[in-house]
């Protein structure tokens, strides 16, 4: 084993600056004025339809202008004329008998324990309806089986009404990817990822990790520690340390704290797969900690001395359960909160980054010309909820994530099966500008794809739980390339 070389001067990290959010990438923080629970959820659907209807119309006209029969747009869904091919735009509503129904919940036999929540709610008896302000109409057709649809998607349907009153769909049209800011240079203009370690030609990377699950098992503690050491540049040889210095930010995508107590049958099975003696952290005395948050804040404090961190709350984190989850309070993280580079974000959140550092005069100094990258990060609840609607086999998580970009909506199932805040005048989940990086955490496995449509492109990343898989995802800011680091702690 050859000795590790010591760098003559300390290696410095590449820096990126966070830019303020714009109107097209709004903040998800719920202000006191919006914090009203007095109105119904129906407003969200109306706002969504109003916003996305023109986009669908544009797309539809572009797509179907050459269809014989010159279909017209019928403004109200109920006004369709039998037998005539036409175009209607509305919101999809999936009528699923297996969907959790509050009436069933109230009416069930309370003497026996409640059945566990289903993993999938789709079945053969599902009916797809199209709804708008006037009413709803049932959609039928082969194309519906091939296209994954969930409640809340705004779609344009080309077809004709049948004699039975249902609308036979021939083709579907979605809003398509939202326009992107052209200030971000196209990836074709960039050279490939440079692998030489000269400080002048380093590319900035953003690291994504999810599901740290601090407090769940001792094995994940060691993995987290190696992760911290890798990111702060202690671990590895000189080349690896130089590479780690290119990671300018870390985004933690939820589930940083393990859920305490019995979490249902699914979790137990997963743990049984691992060949480990202790399953609950209470059983193992080596790293038993009554305050997992202290462990987490110690790790984050260690990390925040090296790298800028953004923490998003997840499903198992102590933040609200309705979307958008508000930022965790900084005070929870102890000494880590004393760093200005440590920030707590809402879930979901937009982060706009520019390469370079913020000078003292307020201008951005960067070695490369002003390049702004938009990241849309969520902790996975919308995607997990959507995946209940569709069978996993043909429609993977990645496909669904790509579909959300084309639907221009982060969480179409939002008021229906995914709990969300009752917004009145806006639907903040509408994607007004396609982000460069769309990162979704707490997924069962890692997947990534560069989704393109015309000249718009977005890098979709599904980040798995770190405690289970040890995956850390690195995305190059310049070229949107992805690398993964897989950290394992073997126990003999």
């Amino acid at each position, binding site marked *: *084993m050859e*000795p*590790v070389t010591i*760098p003559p001067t*300390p290696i*410095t*990290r*590449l820096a990126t*600056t*966070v830019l*303020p959010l714009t109107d097209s990438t709004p903040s998800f*923080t719920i202000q006191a004025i919006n914090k009203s629970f007095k109105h119904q959820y129906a407003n969200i659907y109306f706002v969504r339809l109003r916003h996305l209807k023109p986009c669908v119309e544009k797309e539809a006209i572009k797509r179907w202008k050459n269809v014989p029969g010159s279909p017209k747009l019928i403004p109200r869904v109920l006004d369709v004329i039998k037998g005539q091919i036409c175009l209607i735009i509305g919101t999809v509503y999936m009528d699923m008998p297996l969907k959790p129904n509050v009436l069933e919940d109230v009416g069930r036999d309370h003497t026996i324990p409640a059945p566990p929540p289903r993993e999938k709610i789709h079945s053969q008896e599902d009916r797809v309806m199209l709804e708008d302000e006037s009413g709803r109409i049932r959609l039928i057709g082969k194309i519906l089986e091939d296209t994954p649809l969930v409640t809340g998607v705004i779609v344009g349907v080309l077809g004709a009404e049948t004699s039975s009153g249902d609308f036979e769909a021939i083709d579907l049209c979605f809003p398509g990817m939202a326009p992107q800011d052209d200030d971000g240079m196209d990836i074709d203009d960039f050279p490939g990822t440079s692998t030489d370690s000269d400080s002048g030609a380093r590319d900035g990377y953003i690291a994504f990790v999810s599901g740290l699950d601090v407090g769940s098992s*001792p094995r994940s*503690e*060691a*993995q987290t*520690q*190696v992760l911290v050491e890798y990111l*702060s*540049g*202690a671990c*590895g*040889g000189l*080349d*690896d*340390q130089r590479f780690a210095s290119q990671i300018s930010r870390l985004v933690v995508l939820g589930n940083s704290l393990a859920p305490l107590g019995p979490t249902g049958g699914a979790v137990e099975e997963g743990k049984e797969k691992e060949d480990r003696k202790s399953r609950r952290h209470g059983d*193992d005395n080596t790293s038993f900690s009554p305050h997992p948050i202290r462990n987490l804040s*110690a790790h984050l*404090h*260690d990390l925040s*001395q*090296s790298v*800028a961190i953004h923490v998003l709350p997840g499903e198992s984190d102590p933040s609200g359960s309705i979307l958008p989850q508000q930022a965790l309070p*900084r*005070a929870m993280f102890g000494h880590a909160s*004393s*760093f*200005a*580079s440590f*920030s707590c974000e809402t879930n979901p959140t937009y982060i706009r980054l520019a390469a370079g*550092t*913020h000078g*003292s005069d*307020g201008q951005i100094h960067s070695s490369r010309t002003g390049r702004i990258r938009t990241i849309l990060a969520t902790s996975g609840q919308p995607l997990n909820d959507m995946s209940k609607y569709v069978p996993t086999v043909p429609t*993977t998580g*990645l496909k669904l994530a790509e579909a959300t970009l084309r639907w221009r909506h982060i969480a179409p199932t939002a008021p229906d099966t995914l709990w969300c805040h009752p917004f009145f005048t806006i639907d903040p989940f509408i994607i007004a500008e396609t982000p460069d990086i769309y990162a979704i955490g707490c997924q069962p496995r890692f997947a*990534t794809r560069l989704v393109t449509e015309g000249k718009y492109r977005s890098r979709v990343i*599904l980040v798995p739980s770190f405690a289970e*898989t040890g995956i850390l995802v690195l995305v190059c800011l310049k070229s949107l390339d*992805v*690398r*993964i*680091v*897989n*950290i*394992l*702690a*073997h*126990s*003999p």
Partner: protein
Amino acid sequence: MSSDSVLDFLTEELVVGKNIVTYRSLSHALGIHVNKAKNELASYHSERAGSLDAAHATYIIGGEPRTSYLDSVRDADAMTVDEQETDEGSEHVPETKITLVGEADLETSKEQYARIDFVHIYSLSPAPIREPALLCEPAKSLRETDKGAGTGFTVALGRITGPNWHTNIKERTDLRPARSPPDTKSSAANAASTSKNKLPGLSKAPSTTEETKPVVKSEPKDVKLEVKEEPAKPKPSGKLDFSKAKPAASDSKPKVEPAESSPASKPGPKSELQPSKPKNKLVERKSTLLKLSDSEDEESTRAPVKPPTGRTESNSAPRATRVAAISDDEDDEAPKPPPTTKAAYKKIKRKAAVPPDSDAEKELRAMMDIDDDHVTKVPRAASISEPATPPPATDVEMEDRGPETEPEPEPEPGRAPAARKAQRKPKKVVPVGRNGLRKRRVVKSRTTMDGKGYVGAS
């Protein structure tokens, strides 16, 4: 070749203390670069391999794996479900795999790598490590030293930080949320930092919070003094107001005091004492008394030596004339330390409030009577001194309050104290026994049962 300090440290930790030493804890303990620490661990390990006090090593390997994570996932899926994830699935990405293994499994783990980027010792331990969680133990003590040392220390040790990190970090010594509004100075400093817009309040420099604190503190102090001057001069807690001994002089005194103590309070109690001391000891003592009563620990610790002595002597000396004499005596005594806690202060007040059994006590009572009169006199001066032109509201109020209040404003001020005196005089004298304790009636109680079977004591 391990240097002496390293050797000593490692021997002490591994052989004597039987602790695990990771390369990070070694580097923090000795202040050397992490890479150097890795080399030191390697040389220590190789020197002692095979000997009695051999240390067991845990290695960390990094490189490109033979079978990537994605492939392994796909294989696992293929076994369970037949799906075509490879076609439209995720793209293949370069992967770096890092594994933490014990030395026994080093070779087998190395085989899983197609290309090894680095292998180095992670830790040394007296026994082979079976639980990876044990490696987290040294990190805890390491973090403690990190907290104390600051960022510059760890940068020298090999931590990678950003170019402007020293300006970014707002190390806060106190983690209490800063309540004072952000002033322009701190916001200008924040422009250079990379903090987000919505967190301007938090990234305030601790210096601003410290500055605002004393200002904030003295303000309520002044306010409190102003407020409490008028309504409650002598408190029933036993503090005596010598200035009220002479009714004539006392009239002017309360008015003089608020005016005097308010400007005097600002420079602080000590300075206030000096100028007013020759003028009127009673006055100054009273204001300092009030100050002590208003404020809590901070004030009392800051309060000079004079006030506590002034206060204790005031309680013992009922008369203004006597006070002068006693105060001189007490001044010569060694000053007692000021009470640091409110509880202690109250205790002293309570102790002082117990009247000594002497003529002094009676004089005290007389004094207290007079005080009340004068208390009622002063606020009512506005309403009583000009009964001809009372504001209609107060007129109505007085009438509304009923007959009980009517006799009060109407009679002379002299009658009210007389009435009070009459009320007070027939107070019974507490019988005190031989040993100084109060005499109490001791009754033998008998338990009786009444007709219905209920047991009672009588």
